């Protein structure tokens, strides 16, 4: 069936089946920026914002979010109009293979929106649901710290 969804501030008609997860529906309809690392809600690669709350999209049925605003990493910023967090991630080398990056960016965005001045502990807590095997998290944490400073105009 085809139903309307609100994705990245646009109304889109998506093809779906009733039993499909939001992750599958998004990916099947071209939103491949949402990644599938485990499909078990443990890696955070499929993280999206649902009404501004971070959710592993592999754990949510698409049908249940029809009335909600879905935001993927492209809703935060795009190649030609990147968000400050994305800009900083790329500059800091917080991206290696990049597979965890969309989820990491969402987690960081959510963290900084709720807490613009996070401590180190608050940052690692905020990223705790997102796995990365490449970076060892060091440059990701640095990128979040740097983003916070830029967002707060301290730099």
């Amino acid at each position, binding site marked *: 069936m085809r139903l309307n969804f609100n994705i990245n501030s646009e109304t889109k008609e998506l093809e779906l089946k009733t039993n499909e997860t939001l992750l599958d529906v998004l990916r099947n309809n071209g939103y491949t920026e949402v990644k599938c690392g485990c499909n078990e809600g*443990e890696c955070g690669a499929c993280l999206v914002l649902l009404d501004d709350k971070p959710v592993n999209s592999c754990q949510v049925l698409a049908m249940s979010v029809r009335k909600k605003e879905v935001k993927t990493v492209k809703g935060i910023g795009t190649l030609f109009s990147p968000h400050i967090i*994305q800009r900083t991630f790329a500059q800091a080398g917080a991206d290696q293979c990049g597979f965890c990056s969309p989820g990491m960016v969402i987690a960081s965005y959510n963290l900084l929106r709720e807490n613009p001045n996070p401590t180190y502990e608050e940052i690692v807590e905020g990223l705790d649901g997102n796995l990365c095997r490449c970076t060892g998290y060091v440059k990701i944490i640095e990128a979040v710290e740097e983003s916070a400073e830029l967002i707060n105009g301290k730099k």
Partner: protein
Amino acid sequence: MFKYVNKPIEKIDGLALVTGNEKYTDDFNFDNMLYVSIMHSGFAHAVIENLDDSPARKTPGVAEVLSYKNVKQILYTTAGQGFPEPSPYDTVLFGKTMRYVGDNVCAVAAESKEIADAALKKIKVKYKRLKPLLDFEKAEGSKIIIHKDDDAFPKIPVYYDASKNMPSKVEADIGNFEEAFENSPGKIDHTFYTPYASHCALEPHASVSYIDNRGRLIIISSTQVPFHVRRIVSHITEIPISKIRVIKPRIGGGFGGKQEVLLEPIVALITWRTKRPAKLVLNRKEVFKSTRTRHQFRTNFKVGYNNDGEISAFHLDALENSGGYGSHALTVLSNAGSKTLPLLNKIENVRFTGKSVYTNLPCGGAYRGYGATEAYFGFGQVIDMICEDTKQDILEYYKKWSIKSGETSPIFKALGEGKEGVAMTITSTSLDQCIDTGAKESDWYAKKKLYGANSEMNKNNRYKKGIGMAALMQGSAIPEIDMASAYIKMNDDGSFNLNVGATDLGTGSDTILAQIASEVLDTPVEKFIVTSSDTDITPFDVGAYASSTTYLSGKAVQKCAEKIKEQILKVGAEILDSKIEDVEIEDSMVKIKSSSKGSDQEKISFEDICRYAFYQNNQFQIQATASHVSPKSPPPFAAHFAEIEVDTLTGFIKVLNYTAAVDCGTPINTTLAEGQAEGAIVNGLAYALFEDYYFTPHGKMLNDTFGKYGMFTAYDIPPITVKLIESYEESGPFGAKSISEININGALPAIANAFYNATGKRLFKAPFTPEYVLKILND
């Protein structure tokens, strides 16, 4: 001084990655595509007596079923290595014998994943269950023979004895170990165990294939080795190499796990038979169970030394659990010796004996560190034991006895990769400075004085602190075997296409290789359009493994760019009406030497040079290709320092600080080099403290999810300090060596040594779980 290398340049794909713009294998979809699901064996050891796929075939939407019944039984190795592979040909794509829980039974291709999964369940398989062999220490000569009647054979003339469950055996013997050990006043004889591990690349293995307009097979795959994939798929499917094109898009991490040809032959066969696109993406459980792992190892060290700590006899005996198949069995085993023993090159009597055995457990394969990680666990502790026993300062000890520039080790020649190794002399090392820097950064001497099992602060304290270190080496590419090549052509705006076979798995090699070309041609990195890893378009490269890309592919790019430079100078001189020896390249221009920049008559831009070459006189395409094979494998070196706190009540080890000082020659991209080190360190820490495979009594992996497996999150990491201590390796591009693997080797020995410093007890088995730590503390 460098202009474009040795700089923290942003990855050329960075912004595309973090905005979700880049495409990975599973992001490619094609009309009329089939979805493939695999049935994996639930038995560790069994023979299929019958497989009835007719219920699946009758299921609406099912297009093809692959099993031993309709797949030719062609032996190969899944190891994506150079040809002929040093791994035995002991695998068939779909056979009748199941050799571990996760082995391939059959595959279904259907209109949707749901149909494929449902159809798989309808396939009736009758197994004859065999007794599994699950203890690798009892595998040699066991009555249970894992590769019995399958005609498995080694592709190269090396030891292989299936009747003894032994896919490989490696030995090297220098001097007279027995006599020297016998006569040594100090003796060590200890055995260490390292566990299985999963690579945990965030992107699961994935392949998709289709037939192009002219009938050729195109495979898009998450692989580290596209050229090996093309060759091995051709071997298994009997589709000519000329009909196959392999493309590696962005890949979500590899770490050795994707140096393995697992899915490509399956989608290839389905597409070739049905003429329809086919996609196969594993789920996480399948990645854990059915793909490849780090080999489980037992290492024994017999070491004889005198009262000054000088080692006269050193014997490393390694037993490697290869699992059901012998992928990378020989070479990982060999590297356990060849990447550790040369570090202390002055030992006169050195012996390495290694055996690899088949079991009915998951298959080993390539994994970052590749045998060195497994061996350094014991190696680093043995050196610490000697220093403790003879009251040596371990830092001075390593400085005194480690291999130096101008020196060699007989091990380089004695231990090769399936053949004799390559003798080489070290031409770059900053290990001594790494040790000094690491000591300073970790506050080694002050903490060493403060801590200790009998120190005031530790003696009666539940929480005991300790500090430990280890010195390390690895290699850079496989000498005289690995080949890389590059192609560059110039465009009429002064930009260049740089086509490389090299495989960027997220390491940033596309960027690093562009930086190297930039440096040669004195033109910005943005001027290079990098295309990598497409067997139709890019020249050959063995792929991303053995810490080779920067060192080996980088040198090919450097050589290629030098040729381009010659051509540009020639055209520039022609335009400027000068001689080639009188012109030089500067800032994307050719100018007359010693001329001032201001004069238009004395300089010509790259853009004008290319336009001239395209359209005006003596027209030709400025283009070149170059290949590189290295006569040596210069080791990177590192010194790692771990400071820990042991909770003696719970057995929990907390890493307080981790410091690594690393010599990778010239780091071509400082940010990316640090990132390689940090990533490897954290993977090493998790391997030392948590990661393991737990099995049922029947050989089924129990902890096959991220949650149960224990990979670190940002929350788990200690403060990590990485210092790049440059040296200059003359055989590498602009002095570069490798950095990708070495730093995974330090956590095991450094933490274990810190544990000894804190508690006076030694750890012989990884991971250092609270349960194991308590057992050791209470012993």
